[in-house]
């Protein structure tokens, strides 16, 4: 499954890129699976995503819980807790 990943704030800075296209293996079913998979891709991913409980994820620009399936996702956003307003 091909998906576009977009990163924001310190997740973006630690990965040193704002976005990328990835081809995900069949075994990646949920948001949690995705985060676990990303952490195998290199040290920068491990650092950026080490505190998984604070990492927020959006599927097709809508907030998603870590146990949600990513089936149908065209774009997945990964970012820290929001601090706007």
């Amino acid at each position, binding site marked *: 499954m091909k998906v576009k990943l*977009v990163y*924001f*704030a*310190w997740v973006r800075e630690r990965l040193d890129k704002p976005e990328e296209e990835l081809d995900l293996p069949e075994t990646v079913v949920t948001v949690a699976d995705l985060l676990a998979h990303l952490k195998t891709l290199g040290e920068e991913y491990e650092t950026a995503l080490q505190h998984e409980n604070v990492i927020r994820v*959006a599927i097709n*620009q*809508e*907030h998603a819980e870590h146990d949600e399936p990513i089936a149908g996702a065209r774009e997945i*956003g990964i*970012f*820290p*807790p*929001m*601090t*706007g*307003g």
Partner: protein
Amino acid sequence: MTMSLTPTIRVQSEDFDLQKEVDKLTAGRTDIGAVVTFSGLCRDEGGALSALELEHYPGMAEAEMRRIAELAIERFSLQGLTAIHRYGKIAPGENIVLVIAASPHRQAAFDGANFVMDFLKTSAPFWKKEHAASGEARGWVPAKDADDSARDRWSKITESPARGG
């Protein structure tokens, strides 16, 4: 009163003018009795900061703001709602965010603007980075538990304690 109404949502780098935004909301109407505006401004934290830098998730930021605005319109029977959030570098004393809520009576306008701010803080995809007075980046502002509590109070309250005219 509950005709389907479209909130005004904008994400922009430019500043806004309160009176102009209120005028757009109330233009030609004679049924609005109360307008509440909230502006969030950049503080320098006792001189420690030279700027805040606001990053956002384009597309999703507008979509979340619209979702929150529509919840507020429905919940408080608002007659109009505007939410504007700026991005980019913002100096101390400058505006960051504006929410305007209009309704026939005052408490709904206060509650509507307050509700939108609480949800916007915790679920609209914006992030603040601090720039020190010296100029270099000081890092990202951490999320506050107090903001989660402020949001969560809206799920406990079914109706507001007092409703004045």
